[in-house]
């Protein structure tokens, strides 16, 4: 019984370490923020080349998101969706975690320039 408990703890710890490793390895690469709607590239922004913060609006059949781009970071400043998850998430500056606005089929990811 005890050995089984140790086995599962060890297995999950190893999996978690792998997961963290994979995220970190994939994470920091790139400065190109890509805004996708329905999997199609809507707009891109090179976060390394942003001198002054600016905003743009993504308006689609699903709804409207206002995206704010600042030096090194990107965020959804405003959205007319019911849950506001993407707004609450705040700004992202690496590829570890994407911004997803599910109701509007919108994804913002930071990617490698070459990808």
């Amino acid at each position, binding site marked *: *019984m005890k050995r*089984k*408990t140790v086995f*599962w703890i060890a297995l*999950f710890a190893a*999996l*978690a370490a*792998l*997961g*963290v*490793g*994979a*995220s970190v390895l*994939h994470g920091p690469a790139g400065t190109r923020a890509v805004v*996708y709607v*329905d*999997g*199609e590239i809507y707009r891109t922004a090179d976060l390394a080349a942003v001198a002054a913060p600016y905003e743009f609006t993504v308006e689609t059949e699903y709804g409207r998101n206002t995206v704010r781009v600042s030096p090194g970071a990107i965020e959804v400043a405003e959205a007319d*969706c*019911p*849950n506001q*998850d*993407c707004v*609450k*998430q*705040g700004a992202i500056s690496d*590829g*570890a*975690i*994407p*911004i*997803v606005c*599910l*109701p509007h*089929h*919108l*994804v913002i*990811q930071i*990617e490698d320039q070459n990808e």
Partner: protein
Amino acid sequence: MALLTALELTIWVLEGQIPAPIPVPGVKLGLASVVTLTAMVLLGRREAGCILLMRVVLGALFAGSFSAILFSMAGGALSWAVMAGILGLFPEKLLWVVSVFGAMGHNLGQLLAAAAVTKTPSLFWYGPALLVSAIVTGAFTGLGAMYLVRALRSYQKKQRP
């Protein structure tokens, strides 16, 4: 069962109101799953499925959006299927392992739904992070369910000596 449904729904709504400690989409403790798992052990798989289904449907009324119900359903269904499938394989002391696998199923379901809705397969890069989150949250809610099962059992014994 109705009581457990109400309990799960209440926990789910309450947890949604608490600002997440880490502002990351998809990462939350999933306290409501404590009830699902407890129901699965004490009442049975089908009963737990009913409670979960009611929570998803009623929860959508509170959240008030249709895409949320689909999302919630994808995670809930896969989580339930995984837990129902492996529940018999583990002794009660290892209930938290069942919970971890359930959490993985939940997150995988939501990731699949998100990738399908947004048609953005590169979302799967988010998978490893969600895996880590599932292990941590699944272990905690699983332990919670384990203690709740134990407490409810001893309470039942006291009621009917």
